[in-house]
């Protein structure tokens, strides 16, 4: 899922600093108040405290060394279980915290030049700026807070936020007027109206988000928490009632009933500590992964929703196609020489700085027409206007016009020329094959012909969409093109559906329509008129270059403003959910093996003929573990170590493959379900062997 286009702010998860910090945090997180939120780990904490007290009590009582060694180890490993879980969470938070530190450093005391009511200016601290204040920022100054440019054009370095060092243009009006505090003006100056109050700036919010300061549990996490708490209570009942049961069972038996150490060990092994310990780490790591793609999710809920998305609305331009149409053919009207058409096309495009215009100029060179400089006073360029949908040039008395088909046809008719059928047919052919026809005419010979502008679909998109389809996600292309053009591009790109001649209104309608059908919709947007649709969509990714309104309406912000990333975000969301499911299944499947270690150890002495032999239930020791003590210890140690072993998986997420639910389930069920059932058997066996070799547990 790595995309070469996306620059990762690559700080490894296993950075030394992060690990050191996580080690300290693991202890800080022992605070019962924080742990209480995690019912599974809270039970382990209580268990550790009880065993610790009992252990010291037994030292004072002067228990046998062999028993004390066992009790000491159980106690230590129970503490480790809690610490390992804390460590996992701290590791997940580590990268975000490091990033927040960098951001905070950048946010040092910046000064701002604020305009006063009287028209003078004063120097104030950036942190004292309020909504509505107007500031002037000159070259090499840092923009003090978020706002709208109300005057001026400047190039701005936004690397503090995006990590992308290429400067961007910010200017008043339009969709490029939003600026972010903490970015730097490189050239010229900007007059900015501050749009947020202190503490609410983008950087502030970003620090909060990456730090996870007010991280809230997502709905699915809460539901999973309930499941885990429920299972914990069920096993608590199963283990707690074992005590009275064994009182009954040991009535006629000279041996001692199992003590609290083994009961607590059994409990800790049975409750789902693996997923309980890693659950929050998985969630934090998921958000962190999104952040590594330079997408800022305002909540974990948004990332989770991304995994559920059924319908992706993708803007054609920039996402599906390269974004600029290129001239690929000149089609002449009857009785017109191709040279004339090429000449007219080039002349009318000379002042057109858009990629389309430039591509016409370049394409015309194929017909031997050289690029010219026109500085003649008789030359007037007619810029493109959205009303007439025509642009052109007047050279002396000759008017050359190019533009949308019907507009130019009307222009020709208006000037008394007829529209040849051949041209009409050609124009339709271009439109049907996904191109955009630009018709060229002048006031002398009438219609000259058409330019075939073609959208170039990005490489690899077709495969991408096929993958999405195999996962059950429909892609809908949004375009302003007419239905014919849209249909052709849609089929070339391999999307499932398209919305042609899109307006903010019908885009909104489409989202609502999908949602009434029970589907979850994701989309990207940048303009102010996208804001309502962004808010309505279940996952709305706003481009960082977009307007303030768009950024506030979406629940994610793409700092690189690359709309293709919506697909990655969906994949990360899916991966997050899969990781959670995989580890839950693994954790629960683990219990089977632990029973076969601890139960024979606990009740091995029941109905034994004498104190030196094993009773009948020792037959359940199918792993052939050495002794009761080594068996219980091995299970507890395995239970603790598996958390550490699985931390990388929790942080990186399970391997993600685009495939349908059936095959995904099959694959993951085999790895995590069957694997979870089988893995503990050899694991516990090996630990048992090591314990005995190290003389940490008796041989029999």
């Amino acid at each position, binding site marked *: 899922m790595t995309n070469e286009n996306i620059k990762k702010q690559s700080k490894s998860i296993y950075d030394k600093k992060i690990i050191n910090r996580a080690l300290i945090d693991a202890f800080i997180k022992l605070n019962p108040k924080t742990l209480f939120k995690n019912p599974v780990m809270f039970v382990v904490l209580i268990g550790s405290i009880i065993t610790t007290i009992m252990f010291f009590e037994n030292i004072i009582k002067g228990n046998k060394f062999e028993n004390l060694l066992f009790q000491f180890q159980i106690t230590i490993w129970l503490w480790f279980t809690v610490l390992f879980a804390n460590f996992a969470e701290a590791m997940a938070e580590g990268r975000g915290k490091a990033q927040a530190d960098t951001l905070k450093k950048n946010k040092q005391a910046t000064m701002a030049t604020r305009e006063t009511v009287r028209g003078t200016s004063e120097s104030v601290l950036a942190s004292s700026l309020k909504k509505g204040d107007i500031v002037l920022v000159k070259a090499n100054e840092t923009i003090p807070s978020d706002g709208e440019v109300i005057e001026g054009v400047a190039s701005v370095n936004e690397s503090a936020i995006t990590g992308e060092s290429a400067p961007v243009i910010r200017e008043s009006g339009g969709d490029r007027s939003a600026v972010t505090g903490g970015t730097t003006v490189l050239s010229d100056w900007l007059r900015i109206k501050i749009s947020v109050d202190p503490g609410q700036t983008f950087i502030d919010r970003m620090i909060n988000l990456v730090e996870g300061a007010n991280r809230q549990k997502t*709905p*699915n996490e*809460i*539901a999973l928490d*309930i499941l885990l708490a*429920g*299972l914990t*209570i*069920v096993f608590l*009942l*199963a283990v*707690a*009632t*074992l*005590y009275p*049961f064994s009182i*009954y*069972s040991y009535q*006629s038996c000279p041996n001692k009933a199992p003590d609290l150490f083994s009961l607590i060990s*059994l409990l800790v092994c*049975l409750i789902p500590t693996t997923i309980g310990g890693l659950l929050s780490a998985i969630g934090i790591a998921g958000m962190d992964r999104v952040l590594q793609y330079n997408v800022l999710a305002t909540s974990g809920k948004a990332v*989770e929703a991304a*995994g*559920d998305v*059924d319908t992706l609305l993708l803007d054609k331009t920039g996402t599906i196609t390269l974004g600029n149409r290129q001239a690929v053919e000149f089609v002449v009207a009857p009785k017109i020489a191709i040279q004339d058409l090429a000449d007219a096309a080039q002349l009318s495009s000379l002042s057109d700085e858009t990629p389309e215009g430039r591509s016409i100029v370049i394409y015309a060179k194929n017909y031997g027409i050289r690029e010219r400089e026109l500085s003649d006073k008789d030359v007037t360029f007619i810029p493109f206007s959205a009303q007439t949908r025509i642009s052109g040039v007047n050279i002396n008395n000759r008017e050359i016009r190019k533009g949308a088909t019907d507009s130019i046809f009307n222009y020709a008719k208006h000037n008394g020329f007829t529209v040849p059928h051949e041209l009409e047919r050609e124009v339709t052919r271009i439109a049907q094959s996904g191109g955009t026809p630009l018709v060229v005419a002048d006031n002398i010979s009438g219609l000259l012909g058409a330019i075939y502008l073609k959208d170039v679909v990005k490489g690899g998109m077709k495969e991408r969409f096929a993958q999405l*389809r*195999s996962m*059950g*996600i*429909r892609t809908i292309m949004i375009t302003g093109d007419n239905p014919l053009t849209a249909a052709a591009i849609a089929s070339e790109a391999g999307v499932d559906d398209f919305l042609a001649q899109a307006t903010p209104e019908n885009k909104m309608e489409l989202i609502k329509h999908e949602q009434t*059908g*029970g*589907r979850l919709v994701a989309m990207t947007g940048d303009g102010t008129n996208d804001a309502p649709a962004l808010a309505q969509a279940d996952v709305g990714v706003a481009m960082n270059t977009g307007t303030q309104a768009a950024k506030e309406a979406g629940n994610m912000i793409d700092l690189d403003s690359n709309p293709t990333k919506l697909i990655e975000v969906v994949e990360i969301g*899916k991966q997050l*959910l*899969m990781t*959670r*499911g995989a580890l839950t299944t693994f954790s*629960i*499947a683990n*219990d*089977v093996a632990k*029973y076969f270690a601890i*139960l024979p150890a606990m*009740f091995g002495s*029941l*109905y034994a003929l004498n104190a030196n032999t094993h009773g*009948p*239930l020792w*037959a*359940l020791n199918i792993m052939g573990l050495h002794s009761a003590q080594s068996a219980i210890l091995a299970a507890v140690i395995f239970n603790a170590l598996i958390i550490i072993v699985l931390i990388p998986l929790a942080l990186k997420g399970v391997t*993600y493959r685009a495939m349908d*639910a*059936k095959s*995904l*389930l099959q694959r*993951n*069920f085999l790895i*995590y*379900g069957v694997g979870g059932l089988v893995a503990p058997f050899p694991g516990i066996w090996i630990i048992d062997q090591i314990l005995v070799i190290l003389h940490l547990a008796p041989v029999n």
Partner: protein
Amino acid sequence: MTFLGICQIFFFISLILLIAQPLGLYIYNVLEGNNTLFSGILRPSEMLIYRLANIDFCEEMNWLKYTQCVIAFSLVSMLLTYLLLMFQNLLPLNPMHFGLSDAPVYASKMTPDLAFNTAISFTTNTNWQSYAGETTMTYLSQMLALAFHNFVSAATGIAIAIAVIRGFIVNRVGTIGNFWTDLTRITIYILLPICIPIALLLVSQGVIQNLNPYLTFTTLDNHNQTLPFGLVASQEAIKNLGTNGGGFFNANSAHPFENPTPLTNLLEMLSIFIIPAALTYTFGKMVKDTRQGVALLTVMTVIFLIGTLVTYHFEAKGNPNFKPYNINYATSQLGDSGGNMEGKELRFGIANSSLFAVVTTDSSCGAVNCLHDCLTPMGGLITLLNIELGEVVFGGTGSGLYGIIVFAVLSVFIAGLMVGRTPEYLGKKIEKKEVKMAMLFILVAAFSILVFTAIASVINFPKDSFWNSFGSGTNNLNNVGPHGFSELLYAFSSCTGNNGSAFAGLSANTPFYNILLGIAMFLGRFFMIIPVLAMAGSLSKKKLVPASIGTFPTYSYLFVILLISVILIVGALTFFPALCLGPIIEEFLMRQGKLF
């Protein structure tokens, strides 16, 4: 095990699978209010009931209203039953004068705690019997207090299952049907019409049906013997069909007047399983995807077959300690002798007794044709485990289906995330509320079984206590050691699971056990119904998400494996430690030659 024995087991399950589809379709039509075979005759009486009871049969209820109706109906009928039992001595149809001064010597008293226990027992579809029918109940009590509940408690179970399914199929409506209409339709269109031919078939095989006083006669060896009589056939039919299991006589389906021939034995087993099996088809039909129902039926069938074959294997193998004594050790071809024949009827033999034991514990029926106390330890383990799995393998009428739906919801929630979407079942998102309710369902069962058994295993009573005889609560057990523990664990499992069969061996007719077991039955019914209906309510308010290729497929073989694993892991692992101290250690000890 013999070939013929295995054939009989597979013949039985094939018949069930054959009947499931047409009966399921019929139930579907009845509950949809469609015209069916009996509509012409029964519609007027249905309408009459609505008019008499002043029921608006078009009213759609939300989950809260539905639950209130279920609870109110159950509590009121429970109270009526209690009163009827307490005053049965003063009421008619008491030819043996039970409760009167001239009652026969064998008659036992109807105490308030026994009436309490019995009223709860029959209202909750448990039919745990702390009494012996022929020495305690008048004919009127059998007919009115008990048989009435055999019908309506079964109908209530089915109604709830249907309401739960409606929670899945409605799109943001919030209502799950009308309890009164469901109850009426199920009773008069489904239960009554099926019971009549079954009762007639039973009579044809020799099951009695009369209101005569008991007959006392002198046997060939010059002893006086009393033959109890009663309206057995009519009650026998609904006892099995409604998975009630409360026998007319103490010996239940082992009694020749209740279950005289191998044919009636087959008929009774079939009637226990057909409605739970058919409901899976009804379910598939209602959710408009019969594959979903087939998946659940497959899960049930697989677990059932494993249980049956294990039980049959160990029963046929018998007790190894008898081998040296040359006691007809090998199983005969027909399976009617050899193996562990202790506590079994010769006319049924090993295979059909093992099969019946598994059928009755898989479903929450609780009728028995052999003594479960006398099963081999492993046979006993299977019956115990069947109940503790939550009575979802076919299960009770309705309760089996909603039970397995709860497990399906849990399976989808645990493993469904593995397909990279938040879990959904049948187009509804499984979220906080659903998981909470599903976990409550599991918790209540675990709590009731484990905590009450724990109390009973260590409690001590002072001298002259009202509650129980002097000393340990385990003094009421016939056996010591692990076998005694199994008897105790079985009693609380059976009551919580609303099964009602007894392992036997526990003298439960004391205030302590009557009340504690009564509470277990109450918790096991109503405290599990409420979360299930609340779950249905929450689902009914959600919108339906269309299935796509990315949706967790809940009809695939993989889901079947997953659901079986979750039922076994969540159900069995909870009770595995307790089972170790009961049947499992008993099995090992038996192999060492130690018996209890």
